[in-house]
């Protein structure tokens, strides 16, 4: 599965539930509007000023969680194992329920977060092992393994939680908050566990960044350099399990995968360098964690998971639009620039070709010039586009406009035009002689390609074609310059008239 479809999958599959849960909570809170508002007015300021120790710690925990998710997610996304994280987080649910049920028998408090998270980690690891096992079976593919583990473990987890909820203390424990996350339920002790685990994961991943980069880029090469791809994958999976565990409290297991994938995917819009991608992903994740937890603290009752994921989604959307490397806006600017330069090249070439015949036999040919009507005839340009291109080319010193309105190539413009015509015809010639393209069609085919020809390619074309034909220079067009020929004789007077 390509990185792109994974991202799409999660944007639609996880942002929508996040939005749904969020709006359900909002509706519920709207019904109890009065008392929430009263409470909020008093505490809101304290929250924003970070006066509560507890709020501070919870915010810190959520931020570290986001940072660590960004770092881990970058590697899993590049390893194309993003879905594994989803299966692992779902697989942790039965562990939470079982840990709660079994803890008293082992003499520990079932309410302690570390006990529940240990349960989550163990069942997550069992899920991971099951995935690895199923994948080894012949005729079962990776996605089957993930689907099986995800749904079976999650189903089992929901069943166990239903049992737990029936017991009195089970109901009070609020285990269901693990599904959608609830920072309000987070104690400072919980936040401490989260922060330490998160920082530890970041440290491990950064220490192993080189082998992991090799693993993600070129598995075979990593293996032959002596890195065990099995152990590296295991390390990465262990990090995913750890992050998922500490994310259960704040984000919940359904949405945890969104925090793992979206920051990394969003970071890709900003950079083409892996270290920078990791930093940006961490920042986006950290920012989402902080903002989500803050909003959730301001408006208790909103589940924090959906809020965090919605902030994440918003940042993704902004990156998608404004990312400086692959964002939509920068890409459309680049495309506009390319189109502009293509149009300008056509303009220069058009003027040159219109006057090509005149140069014959004249010892000192005049600068090629053409009227707007001629130019409009050779290309399907609109008047406004043409005049815009003329202005632009004039600003760059390639053409100037004579008093009679004719567009004249400057010396520099003429050199550029000659090179363009040469490239165009070389390519046409190549298509005809080497690629069996019919002479009537080469003009359009060459049009599409000539603008992207690199200098080295032109050199090779020259070598290839000039060794066959006679003189170097600009070859004559292999096809009649259709509309140009009649126009030339007709319009010559006007063009030359003002000279």
């Amino acid at each position: 599965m390509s990185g792109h479809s994974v991202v799409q999958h999660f944007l639609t599959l996880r942002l929508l539930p996040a939005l749904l849960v969020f709006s359900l909570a909002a509706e519920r809170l709207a019904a109890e509007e009065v008392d929430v508002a009263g409470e909020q007015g008093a505490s809101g300021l304290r929250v924003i000023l970070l006066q509560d120790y507890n709020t501070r710690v919870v915010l810190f925990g959520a931020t570290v969680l986001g940072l660590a998710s960004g770092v881990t997610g970058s590697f899993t996304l590049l390893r194309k194992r993003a879905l594994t994280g989803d299966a692992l987080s779902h697989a942790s649910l039965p562990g939470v329920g079982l840990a709660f049920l079994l803890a008293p028998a082992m003499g520990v408090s079932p309410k302690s977060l570390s006990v529940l998270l240990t349960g989550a980690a163990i069942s997550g690891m069992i899920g991971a092992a099951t995935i690895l096992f199923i994948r080894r079976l012949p005729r079962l593919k990776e996605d089957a393994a993930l689907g099986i583990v995800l749904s079976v473990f999650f189903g089992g987890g929901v069943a166990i939680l239903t049992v737990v909820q029936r017991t009195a203390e089970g109901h009070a424990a609020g285990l269901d908050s693990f599904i959608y996350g609830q920072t309000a339920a987070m104690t400072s002790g919980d936040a401490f566990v989260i922060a330490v685990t998160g920082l530890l994961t970041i440290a491990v991943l950064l220490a192993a960044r080189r082998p992991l980069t090799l693993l993600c880029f070129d598995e075979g090469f990593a293996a032959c350099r002596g890195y065990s791809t099995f152990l590296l994958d295991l390390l990465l999976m262990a990090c995913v399990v750890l992050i998922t565990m500490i994310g259960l409290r704040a984000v919940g297991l359904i949405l945890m995968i969104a925090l793992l994938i979206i920051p990394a995917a969003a970071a890709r819009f900003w950079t083409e360098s892996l270290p920078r991608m990791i930093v940006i992903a961490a920042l986006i994740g950290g920012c989402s964690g902080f903002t989500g937890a803050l909003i959730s603290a301001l408006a208790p009752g909103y589940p924090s998971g959906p809020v965090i994921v919605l902030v994440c989604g918003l940042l993704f959307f902004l990156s998608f639009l404004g990312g400086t490397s692959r964002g939509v806006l920068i890409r459309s600017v680049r495309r506009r620039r390319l189109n502009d330069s293509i149009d300008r090249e056509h303009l220069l070439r058009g003027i040159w070709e219109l006057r090509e015949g005149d140069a014959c036999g004249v010892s000192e040919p005049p600068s090629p010039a053409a009227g707007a009507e001629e130019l409009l005839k050779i290309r399907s340009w609109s008047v406004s586009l043409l005049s815009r291109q003329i202005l632009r080319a004039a600003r760059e010193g390639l053409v100037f406009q004579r008093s009679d309105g004719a567009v004249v190539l400057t010396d520099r413009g003429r050199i550029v035009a000659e090179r363009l015509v040469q490239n165009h015809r070389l390519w046409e010639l190549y298509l005809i002689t080497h690629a069996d393209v019919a002479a009537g069609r080469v003009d359009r085919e060459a049009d599409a390609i000539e603008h992207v020809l690199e200098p080295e390619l032109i050199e090779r074309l020259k070598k290839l074609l000039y060794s066959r034909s006679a003189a170097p220079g600009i070859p004559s067009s292999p096809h009649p310059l259709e509309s140009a020929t009649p126009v030339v004789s007709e319009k010559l007077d006007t063009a030359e008239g003002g000279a």
Partner: protein
Amino acid sequence: MSETAVPLSIRDLTVAWHRKPVIWDVEFDVSAGELVGIVGPNGAGKSTLLKSVMDLIPRVSGRIEIFGRPWKDQRQRVGYVPQRESVDWDFPVSVLDVVTMGLFGRIGWLRPVLKRHREAAQRALERVGMGEYADRQISQLSGGQQQRTFLARALVQEADLYLMDEPFAAVDAATEETIVEILREMRASGRTAIVIHHDLHTVPEYFDSVMMLNMRVVAQGKTEDVFTRENLERTYGGRLTLLEEATEAMRRQEKSL
């Protein structure tokens, strides 16, 4: 290198994917300072052979020695150029980063990449004619440039034995020339290269010896001795139907279990 052991010696090698054997009973010796070509039809097991030399896939039987020692002791002396299609070229790294990967073994996990490492990578890039592309994003490379990048990554390792999987696949004449030149430089400095190759016309020109593989070794030896029409027919012709039918039967049986 003052040793007598040959760069690569393979005895009685059989490899299977999911218990379906893909190469049988391969015996193979490579002498030092030779350019060795491996030819054979698609699915003949050429890539599998190289991978099993590097212990990337488990083997059913066989002993492989590199300069007289098992692979895991000699890893640093072997450079590998994988098939270009085996990686995602949309990965966020630059050309220089990829070449530097060849030095990770020397740099270690935590130490920073030093100037001298970057210079070594840059020199390797210049050797393959990619000096100006060091800072390019790998997604912007043409196929031939990707291949040169992989070659440069193997070159920085300064290995004694190189294993290359189709370095000439879909490259233009200029790149092919560069690669051949580098192979000859390697040979001149006493290194050995084993190259999977598909263009049969150039085999006699490029390679000192050749192995013709089609699930088993059809012929091997000096190119002028074994690269004959008859051997080619045996390698590429349908003479191995029995062997194939046997494996197919095994696969069917495996499936029905």
